[in-house]
Structure formats: C-alpha cells, structure tokens
C-alpha cells in the first residue's frame, strides 16, 4: 500500500499533514503542488476523488491511498496516527472526546477565520494578478460549487465593503479567541494542550502558524500560548515540515479554505 501526500506550502492544513508524516514516521511520498494554480484538482490516478472534490476544508492536503483521495487534516492526522500505533490520541474515551471537541473548535471557528484573513491578505493579490484565461483554467476542474465560488470571491472582491468589514472583524475576533483559548488551556502549567502531546497541538499550530501576520500582536501578552507555539515549532516533525517550504515565508501561503458558517 502506497501513500502519496499532495500538499501546499507548509501552512494551515498542509502543515498539519506534513508534520504528522514526521510524527508517525510513516513512509509517505510527499509531493508539493501549487494550490493557487488549481493543481489539487488535477491530481492524477484517483479512482475515488469524492473527498478531494467535496471536502469542507477547501484547498487542504490530499492523501492518496490505493487510489482513494483522503482529506480533512484532523481526520488525516487520526488516520496516520492509527496506522502508526496510536501515540497522538488519548486512550481514555473522555479525554479523546475532549481532544476531538478541541479540534472542532479549531476547524469550525478558527480555521475559517484564519483562511478568510489569510486569503484576503495574501491570495487575493495573486489571483487578481492572474489573466482571466489563466484563472478560468485553474478553477475549471473544481467540482464543488461553493468552493469554486470562494475562489471567485477571493479573486474579485465581489462582497460589498460593509460585508468585507464585518467578515474581517468577525474573523479577527475568532482568530484572537483561538490564541486566547490556547493561553487559557495552558493555565495549569501543562506543556501541551491535552496534557500529553496530541493531534490537537499539531492541528492548532497549523492554523495559528501564520496568525501574527493576520492579527499583529496576537501573541503579545499571551506568554503561555507564545511559548507553546515555540515548543510545537521546535518539534522535529514540524521543523522538517517547515523545511519543505519553497518560499521564504510559508506562513503567508494561503488558498481558499473552509467556509464561514452560513447560519451566522
């Protein structure tokens, strides 16, 4: 059984998946793709493309196992962990529930906020500079109608100024709240979010690695969170993942991500 991981620059969910390769020591063939050129949607050899086509994470990493596209960074992390001996998930059912609930707060609240701010700041100019024909070709193979729409909105700024303002303010609040949640969680002196190091640390760091550029000063006055981020960053798995960057500042590499909750 071969595993191929198609990933973007080590930031967001791609950073999580790459770090999990290092944490688990699994034999995974890691292949970089240019997310903002739509290369995720032309991955060759997929017999089961559904999770790539309709996954909710947006332009996240794709792990291909026996032709099946697997997506969603938390679930990829669980899969890799379970293939390698289950060292990064609590054995106790309640502690496991706590870890999964933590990860859901990250994927449902922090991730859409980080992706919105990151795309606004760093992906919009790249897509806006593309020729129409080039952009149309990049999004042509995207199956999900709502993901394609997020690409179009990222390029064209079709939202009203007021709507952009609201979304920026809301996303800034949510990203800040995620860093504060880390700060609070570490109040009892623990080193890692769930006590022992776990998928929660890797997933959370993936989405927060670029937070400083999006909300300047967000780590200031949150010393426990800042020290935690430095600890995660210095893990060999994360350092190796970051070393795969092909750009000077991978924490500014963003591509359309998960949508902001439609219910408000």
């Amino acid at each position, binding site marked *: 059984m071969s595993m191929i991981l198609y990933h973007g620059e080590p930031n967001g969910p791609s950073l999580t998946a790459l770090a999990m390769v290092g944490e688990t020591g699994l034999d995974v063939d890691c292949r970089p793709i240019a997310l903002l050129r739509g290369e995720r949607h032309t991955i060759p050899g997929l017999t089961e493309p*559904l*999770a790539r086509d*309709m*996954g*909710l994470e947006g332009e996240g990493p794709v792990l291909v*196992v*026996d032709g*099946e596209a*697997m*997506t*969603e960074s938390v*679930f*990829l992390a*669980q*899969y890799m962990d*379970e*293939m390698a001996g289950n060292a990064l998930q609590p054995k106790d*059912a*309640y502690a*496991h*529930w706590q870890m*999964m*609930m933590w990860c*859901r707060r990250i994927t*449902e609240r922090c991730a859409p906020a980080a992706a919105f701010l990151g795309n606004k700041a760093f992906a919009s100019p790249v897509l806006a500079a593309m020729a129409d024909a080039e952009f149309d070709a990049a999004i042509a193979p995207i199956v999900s*109608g*709502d993901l394609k729409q997020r690409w179009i909105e990222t390029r064209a700024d079709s939202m009203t100024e007021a709507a952009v303002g609201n979304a920026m303010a809301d996303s800034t609040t949510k990203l800040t709240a995620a860093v504060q949640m880390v700060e609070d969680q570490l109040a009892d002196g623990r080193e890692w979010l769930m006590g022992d190091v776990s998928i929660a640390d890797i997933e959370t760091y993936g989405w927060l690695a670029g937070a400083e550029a999006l909300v300047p000063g967000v780590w200031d006055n949150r010393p426990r969170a800042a020290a935690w981020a430095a600890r995660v960053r210095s893990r060999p798995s994360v350092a190796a993942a970051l070393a795969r960057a092909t750009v000077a500042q991978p924490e500014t590499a963003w591509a359309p991500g998960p949508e902001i*909750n*439609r*219910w*408000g």
Partner: protein
Amino acid sequence: MSDITLYHWEPNANSGKPMLALMEKGVAFDSHYIDMLNFDQHKPEYLAINPQGTIPAMTHDTPAGRRVLVESTAIMEYVNEAFDGPALMPDNAADRWRIRWWMKFMDQWLAPSFSMFGWKYFVGPNALKAHGEAKIRAQIEAIPLPERRTAWNKAVFGLFSDAEMAESGRRIAVGIQMLEAELAKREWLASDTYSLADVNGFNLAYAMPLSQPHLANDELTPNIMRWLRAIYRRPATRACWKLGRTPMASRVEILETDYIAQKAESEGLYQLGQLGEKA
C-alpha cells in the same frame, strides 16, 4: 436509575444520533425529553447541565466524577469507545477515516441545508404560533449562543433570504446524489459494516421521501431507499423512534411503504407544513 442521562428532543437529526447509538450499543440510559419548541433547552435547569443551551447533552457518572458531553457526533464517538456492545467503528483505519469524513460532511454541509427548510417551514412558524411574538422575542434574547440567536430570529421571522434558500436547495440535491452514488458502492454508507456514519445518516435522511419527494424515492434513489429501510428494520431503530412524542417522529413510518414514487417538490413543503398543523 442509570449512570447515563441523555437530554434530547425528538428522535431526529442531532438528538436522534446519540439516542440511536446508545440503543445500538445496548447501553441503558435515562431519557430526559427536552421540548425544543417550548424552549426547554434555554431554561435554567438545563443550562446548569449544558450552559450553551444546545441539544443533545449527555451526563455519565463515573467513579472519577460526572462527565458532561455535548455535540451529537462527538457524543456518539464517546458512546462507541466508552461502552461494551457491538462496535460501531470498524477496525480498518481507512474505513474509520471515511466514516469521520462523511459525518463531518453531513453535520456541517448537508444537515444545515436540510434544517434551513425545516426551520423556515416548521420550527419557526410553530414556535411563533405557540408563544406569540412578544414572548418569543424574549425567549430568543435569552439564548446563550449568538449563532443560535441569529438562527432562531431568522427562522421565526422568516428572514432566510431567497439566495440562502436556493443555496440550501442546491446542496440538498447535490448531497442526495452523493449519498445515492456512495450507497451504490457498498451496503452501508462508509464501510462494509454498519457504523456511526449510518446512525448519523439515518437521522438526517429518514424523512427525505416525505420532505424531498422530488429527489429521494424508489425511482431516482433506489440505493438510498434500500439503506433507509434496512436501518428502519433494526430493533434499535424501532425502539429509538418509539421515544418520539410528536408527528415528527412518526414520519419514519413512511419506510414501511414498499415502493415510493417520485412526487413534486411542493408536496414535500406541504408535508412540512402539515407537520406543524398536527404538532
């Protein structure tokens, strides 16, 4: 008295997921019915259990103390891991990944689209009819989560935009096609054995032949219908839906019909409205 208490509304959607998972596992629990249309979930006695005021919630008394669990899919995973009984997650890691993927897809993409129709045509109008405008505005103000306040306001006062409804309608159509295609590949939704994805999916889909008769029926989606009927035949499913107290739960009896032909979309909206008349 059991060590486990489940706070739930009708066997439907989020409440039905942990109810059915507990029954499939054969775990005895105290059932505590929360009448959502009566805003029981925002009363102090329930907020003392779950300060967010969301349903369902489960308490589990253990030697280490009382555990309070929220979020329906996460509760199901806890139930599967914490208690003996038939495994509702298979041994194969790729199958477990696929189950988690489908549950997230249903919970966050497909179910909110279904519930936009349910809230617009059923929950909102009925809450308004039962309580009157002044009382309901006060009830909504008391909801702890801002997202839930927005949802209730939109539902009760019919504020879902045409664009939002159209997008939800699009997603329902896409999602039903995805379910049909997946169930054409294997007996169960995400693995070769009955799993939490089926428990989750049944709670989402059991009433589709009534409320989406133009999209889900024996003509267009034979595999979905086979799957729904197979789950309905399970003893746990029968026992679970008996805990329903309103016509909402009895909709499941449509699955006793051997053949369901395609009907117009308007028939589904009529059925949702009727549900309110009977409630």
